[in-house]
């Protein structure tokens, strides 16, 4: 009741605020400066201080008036606060029951005025046990704070603040840097893989820089983007890709690279995962899939003289698994056994080994951090070069970071800077989740005859020669990203903290791919002509956030309130360029030629345009939308290095404006209440639904603090939460309004271009809104023996409604699909268990063990439609699909022919006829996911093991379906040794329809990481402060019955190749082999 009143009031206030838009306002001025100007141009800085000054002046008056009260009988107390190893800068000293306090300086000294002689001083510092000391008239009081190991790990970062595990009302998991996964880590999500119950993190393949799917508490969206919101140092990152998808230049499209690769895992201090709605509702329309908050390291822990840290790692990797393909002898005898005669060219080529490799990768970090009392600084530099186990795949990463903070004005003002500048160079082999019938590089390598010569100029006729393809293909992407976060927080009074944050995130990416004329048997006319693509994406995102925090301790109760405003702007622009008909076959020169041709053509064009193209015969044409639509023909252009060029551009900006509030109220340190609300306005939605209100509430009861609870439990806390969150990920730009632009267009296989015309690209839908998830959750945290044995148990129910999906329009309609809110529910219910036990706690010997397990059940309800999903690729599999979205079934439910066996002719037979597809009661979603970790240390040695696994899911082995059948042998392709046994059973001309024959269990247990490290005992001796060596093995073994290379797979085609726009899971089609990696690293501080 109270909540709803509060909500109504909040909504009224916020909507009235929103409607009262005045221009030009300060805010818009701030963000309307020209794109070309750099961030550090004057306006931002000036405005920042202007804004701070404003806040400061008003609040000073207020603060001063508060101080007038307790001036009587005052004295001054000074002293030093230390920890066992020395003075402690930045420790808090507070007169108990008042707001009078200070922090210690660089040498741990403090001076506190106006201290009543009978007062008690409270000394505290994060990670140390608090001490209370009665003044008793003394003027000098020095204390030494003891480390509190429990407290140290208890701080968890939540949205717009932090709390401790003991005080958290929601379900928040926090993983700190000591607990991160070790070894070769190409993006931050991998750091927490298997660490947290209910968080499933699966990289689709073993390719460096490939995208990663993260599911927190199940899959709630039927759309292709189910990843959580990432917040880096307070800046929510855009959900879109920062790199371009790879165009199909003859071997299929490919997905964008992982947008988080730009973060150096070594810079990360902590990753918090917000799982329930009470934690994520503060992020409103983006919180439904959970929130991952990444906090980077600061110089806070650095020594006063500064610490240098160098870590370096060298890794060797090899494919962890490979297919057992037939060699020449086996091939010849198997073809014969199937009743055929093989064309024997006399060779014995192992194609698989020719396209894969063993690699050496390196990663080096330099860090400098210093804490000088009133501030700290940390600067890092990272260079890493990871080579993929498939030829021509690599990721090079160069990242610099500068984090600094400075306290000013009696430490009341804290200025913080977090910035990172990165360059990621990706090299991708010709692999595609949507390769045609001849397959991509890996498909070609698996099916290539061993009798072919290992010669890139050998043309096998209708198939791809893997060596020819890899030699004549190149795809290089460069992504530069700059992320800056400037914030200022000011203690207006001891209770009130105001904070302003400016975020700026710019990422520029260009991918240049070429397939030259020497290639054969590829598509899109690339053979004999050469085809190339240049895909550029520029992201420019800005953030302004203002929050005001009020904290008050009333003795028996505590109040913590937050209100805030946030504005975020996301601009994505770029161009997609195709080239055709190259004069050179040199891959670098092809890229240069395309760039030069583009430069030439663009120099001939005056003014702006949406697209242009050139082809011999047609000449140069330009299509403009503004100021008026026009087509211009500029005639022939002589001496272009290409026969055809086509360029199309895009430029979209979306905005998000939000108001939010949170109240925490704690009574007697037993009863904790949290309520949050966020009003989110998004330019992605139509006028009828631009703003959404997302409320949540939570209650926690610290039962162990009750007298009746006794001493059995060191922790016993019950948590209950409820909330509504939204999701707008994957919804493109301007999907609620009718928009017109020129059709995308492309260069035809003969090099000609059909000049595109203007068409309606989006249909008006003013009712379009975010997708909404209501989550009910309950949890119990418990601990015994001072939390030596601890754990938590959580249950939840998530109901997702108004599912956003690009569904088939009721025809006639301008587009075949348009975004609608589906009238259906996706229900996720589940539980999570996490247990930790410190088996041994000793001076020299420690041993801990942890396990987490999550169960999730997914079901679609109340859905009228039946939508095919899960495209299957391969020769004879065009239009084939393996999954269907339908009510009563989980998402990613397999919809297949039930395979019975083979008939007398060796053709497969299926239950109910040759084309009877039906639900087979199996889904790609696992029932159980979990992780097991254990670590032990003895003196300077420590070792750890991490296992992760899942159970209950099924994988469609599309690779086997497409390549490893009797029919494949009949077509003269190579197969695996498994096929040998099918001679006489399966016919050599048998078809291979999609069926349960290729559906396999996906259960697995993987030894993800094993590491051993040694701390060289050099403390206080010589130049070095510390020296540590570690040896890590990753992906050491997998227990699974799955016959493919790896059970943790998902093909990721380009977005346009997804059947009905639905995402794909649990389908393995020539996935990039996952590597087994051994790393040796050294870490030095001095």
């Amino acid at each position, binding site marked *: 009741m109270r909540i709803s009143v509060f909500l109504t009031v909040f909504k009224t206030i916020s909507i009235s605020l929103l409607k*009262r*838009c005045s221009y030009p*306002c*300060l*805010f818009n001025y701030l963000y309307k400066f020209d794109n070309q100007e750099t961030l550090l141009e004057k306006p931002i800085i000036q405005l920042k201080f202007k804004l701070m000054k*404003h806040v400061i002046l*008003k*609040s000073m008056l207020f603060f001063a008036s508060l101080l007038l009260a307790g001036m009587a009988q005052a004295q001054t107390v000074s002293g030093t606060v230390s920890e066992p190893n020395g003075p402690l800068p930045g420790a808090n000293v507070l007169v108990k029951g008042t707001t009078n306090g200070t922090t210690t300086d660089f040498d741990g000294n403090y001076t506190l005025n106006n201290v009543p002689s009978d007062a008690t001083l409270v000394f505290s510092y994060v990670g140390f046990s608090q001490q209370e000391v009665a003044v008793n008239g003394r003027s000098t009081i020095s204390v030494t704070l003891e480390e509190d190991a429990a407290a140290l790990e208890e701080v968890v970062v939540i949205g717009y603040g932090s709390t401790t595990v003991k005080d958290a009302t929601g379900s928040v998991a926090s993983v700190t840097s000591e607990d991160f996964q070790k070894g070769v880590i190409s993006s931050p999500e991998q750091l927490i893989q298997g660490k947290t119950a209910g968080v499933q993190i699966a990289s689709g393949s073993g390719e460096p820089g490939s995208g990663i799917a993260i599911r927190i508490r199940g899959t709630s969206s039927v759309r292709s983007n189910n990843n959580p919101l990432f917040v880096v140092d307070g800046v929510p990152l855009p959900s879109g890709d920062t790199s371009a998808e790879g165009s199909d230049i003859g071997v299929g499209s490919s997905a964008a690279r992982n947008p988080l690769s730009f973060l150096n895992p070594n810079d990360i201090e902590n990753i918090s995962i917000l799982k329930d709605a009470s934690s994520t509702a503060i992020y409103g329309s983006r919180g439904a899939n959970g929130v991952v908050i990444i906090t980077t390291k600061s110089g806070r822990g650095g020594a006063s003289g500064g610490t240098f840290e160098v870590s370096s790692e060298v890794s060797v990797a090899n494919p962890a698994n490979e297919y057992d393909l037939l060699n020449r002898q086996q091939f010849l005898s198997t073809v014969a056994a199937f009743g*055929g005669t093989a064309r024997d060219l006399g060779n014995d080529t192992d194609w698989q080994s020719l396209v894969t490799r063993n690699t050496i990768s390196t990663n080096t970090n330099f860090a400098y951090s210093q804490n000088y009392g009133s501030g700290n600084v940390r600067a890092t530099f990272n260079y890493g070069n990871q080579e993929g186990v498939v030829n021509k795949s690599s990721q090079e990463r160069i990242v610099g970071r500068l984090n600094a903070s400075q306290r000013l004005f009696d430490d009341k003002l804290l200025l913080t800077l977090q910035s990172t500048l990165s360059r990621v160079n990706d090299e991708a082999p010709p692999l595609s989740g949507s390769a045609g*019938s001849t397959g991509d590089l890996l498909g070609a390598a698996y099916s290539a005859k061993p009798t072919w010569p290992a010669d890139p100029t050998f043309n096998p006729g*209708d198939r791809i020669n893997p060596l020819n393809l890899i030699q004549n293909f190149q795809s290089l992407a460069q992504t530069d990203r700059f992320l800056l976060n400037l914030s200022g927080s000011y203690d207006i009074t001891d*209770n009130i903290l*105001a904070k302003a944050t400016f975020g700026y995130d710019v990422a520029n990416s260009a991918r240049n791919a070429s397939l030259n004329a020497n290639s*054969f048997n590829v598509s899109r*006319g690339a*053979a004999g002509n050469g085809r190339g693509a240049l895909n550029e994406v520029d992201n420019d995102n800005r953030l302004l956030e203002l929050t*005001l925090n*009020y904290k*008050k301790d009333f003795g028996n109760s505590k109040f913590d*309130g937050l209100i805030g*405003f946030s*504005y975020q702007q996301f601009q994505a622009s770029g161009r997609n360029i195709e080239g055709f008909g190259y004069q050179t076959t040199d891959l670098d020169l092809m890229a240069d030629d395309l760039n030069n041709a583009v430069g030439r053509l663009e120099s001939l064009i005056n003014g702006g345009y949406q697209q242009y193209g050139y082809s*011999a015969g047609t000449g140069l044409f330009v299509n403009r939308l503004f100021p*008026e639509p026009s087509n211009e023909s500029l005639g022939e252009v002589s001496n272009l290095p290409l*026969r055809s060029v086509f360029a199309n551009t895009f*430029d*979209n*900006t979306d*905005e998000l404006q939000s108001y939010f509030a949170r109240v925490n109220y704690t009574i007697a340190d037993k009863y904790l209440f949290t309520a949050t609300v966020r009003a989110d306005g998004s*330019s992605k939605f139509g006028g009828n639904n631009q703003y959404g209100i997302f409320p949540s509430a939570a209650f926690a009861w610290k039962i162990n603090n009750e007298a009746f609870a006794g001493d059995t439990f060191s922790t016993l806390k019950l948590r209950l939460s409820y909330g509504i969150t939204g999701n707008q990920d994957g919804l493109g730009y301007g999907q609620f309004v009718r928009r*017109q*632009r020129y059709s995308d267009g492309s260069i035809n296989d*003969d090099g000609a271009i059909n000049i595109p*015309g*203007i068409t*309606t690209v989006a*249909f*008006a*839908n*003013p009712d379009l809104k975010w997708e909404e998830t209501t989550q009910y959750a309950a949890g119990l945290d418990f601990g015994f023996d001072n939390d030596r044995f601890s754990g938590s148990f959580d249950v939840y129910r998530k109901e997702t409604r108004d599912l956003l999906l690009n569904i*088939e329009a*009721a*025809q*006639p*309609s*301008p587009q*075949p699909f348009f975004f609608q809110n589906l009238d259906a529910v996706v229900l996720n219910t589940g539980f999570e268990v996490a247990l930790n036990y410190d088996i041994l706690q000793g001076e020299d010997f420690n041993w801990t063990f942890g396990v987490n397990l999550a169960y999730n059940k997914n079901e679609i309800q109340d859905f009228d439609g039946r939508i095919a999903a899960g495209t*299957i690729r391969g020769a004879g*599999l*065009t*239009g*084939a699909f393996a999954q269907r979205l339908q009510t009563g079934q989980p998402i990613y439910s397999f919809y297949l022919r039930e395979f019975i066996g083979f008939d007398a002719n060796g053709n497969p037979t299926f239950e109910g006829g040759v*084309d009877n597809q039906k639900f087979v009661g199996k889904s790609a979603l696992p029932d159980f996911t979990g992780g097991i970790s254990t670590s032990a240390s003895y003196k300077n040695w420590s070792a750890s093991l991490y296992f992760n696994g899942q159970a209950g899911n099924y994988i469609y082995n599309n690779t086997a379906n497409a390549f490893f059948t009797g*029919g*494949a042998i*009949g077509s003269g392709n190579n197969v695996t040794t498994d096929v040998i046994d099918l001679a006489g059973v399966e016919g050599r*001309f*048998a*078809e291979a329809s*999609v069926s349960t024959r290729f559906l396999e269990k996906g259960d697995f247990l993987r030894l993800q990481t094993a590491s051993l490290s040694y701390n060289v005992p050099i403390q206080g001796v010589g130049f070095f402060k510390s020296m540590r060596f570690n040896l890590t093995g990753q992906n050491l073994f997998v227990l699974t019955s799955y016959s493919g290379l790896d059970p943790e797979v998902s093909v990721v085609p380009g977005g346009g190749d997804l059947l009905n726009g639905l995402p794909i899971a649990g389908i393995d089609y020539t996935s990039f082999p996952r590597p087994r990696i051994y790393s040796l690293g050294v870490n030095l501080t001095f």
Partner: protein
Amino acid sequence: MKIRTIIKPFALSALIISALISCTDLEIEETDSIISKDTGDFTFSPLADPASSLSDLYNKIGGDFQGQDNIYALNEVTTDELLVPTRGTDWGDNGVWRQLHTHTWNSAHLFIKNAWNTLNQNIFRASEIIESNPSPAIIAEAKFLRAYNMFFVMDFYGSVPFREVDEGPKVNPRVLTRPEAYAFVLQDLTEALPDLPSTGPDLTKTVKATKEAAQFLMAKLYLNASVYSSSGEFDSADMDKVIAAVDAITASGFAIESEKSYFEIFEPTEDTETIFFLRSEVAPRIWNTLHYNQNAPDNTGGGWNGFSTLAEFYDKFEGDPNTNYEGDGQEERRGIVWDNTNANDLNLGIGYGFLIGQQYDSDGSMLKNRQGGPLSFTKEIPSLVGNTEVQGIRLIKYHPYDPIPDTGDDTSPFIESFRRHQVFFRYADAYLMKAEAMFRKGQTAEALTMVNTLRSSRDNTPALTSLDESSLLDERARELFIETWRRNDLVRFNQFTSPWALKEVSGDPNVNLFPIPETALLSNPNLVQNPGY
């Protein structure tokens, strides 16, 4: 006191903040697309450039009709002209091809769904152009294109949904019955006619809508009127209109090609028969039938080894029943298979028409299949699945040989596997429509004369001595095979439900209409499923 101390700074600070920040209206701006700002209740704002949208619609229709799947497959693979047998693992394609051939499709069939979406989308785009106040010439072209697409919706599915341009996504489109759709198409064509240009054979003009193209489509409408009205009776007045429409086409200069050979009509050069063509790729028509080892310099990967014809269809033609080499007594339209005496670099060893028996490479050598055996296409196809690479006669009308040198610096200017010149309406079809109309009116002798006039223009094609429904239908088959009209003809002659090889269902008149796709039924409750589905 305490409450006040909480509220006061909060309220004060809230005021400060709200004073500092104003707000954004959250409107997207016209940066890369033209935005219709009417985001409240749906109203139609005219297209920014109807001429440009019209040209885009031509591009799109060309693309929609060029593929071997969807519209083409529904028109041809459902008939006795074509089947796509599963060869080893190839062409299984989730059963879509065999379901078409065996008439066992259902409302979830991929091509039935895609054709529905594509054709109706084109109708809406044409409506947008018509309602944007462009020039009368543009309206006329758009109306022709709308009629052409609606013709196939009506022909395939019976019912035709229609959405006015000012009806937003919340409106369930109304549904025209087949007779209403017939009237709609006829009205569009009638209204378009005065503002369309009239032309004789002229490649620069027949690439767009003309009076003659509209008259051709009107002739198709009148000829099939009995099907669309479900009367089953050919109305004499309709037949007169067929004759009048074809006579108008003839009057503007189109004629049976007398100079060029039959297969040259499909080359991108001027001929007297092409009434309407689009610059869409002919590659699928060439390569979907040829074997992997039959290739061209600009398509070294060769064909896709799929589409074949039935033995009984091949047997409709004059000539040796088992081979089709030079001198086998075949009529011109059955084409030719080159052998070691006449395969050369220009014809690439790739024949015309019906490819049966041993195939040869451009150097005259015998081609092999992928197992090393002879590439010799068999006449019989024993089964829909489990076939070898060589089973089934192949048939092509377009050929990679291209007599027009490319304007670019292509190194092989006479080979154009991917050229874009797809013939949609051809005079011989119009001519046979007129003959059929006369036949339907009882003027059998005149009709026979016309048929024989056409046959005399094709080499080695002797005159027929009599004409009945069956021989008229067969003549259309021999003249117009794989030109997208076979299903339409079979339905009109009431033969679509007849049995033929490897077809499971026969005699069920419900298959004369495809089902409304299940996705369409779900998205528009005004639609009613056709009987039998």
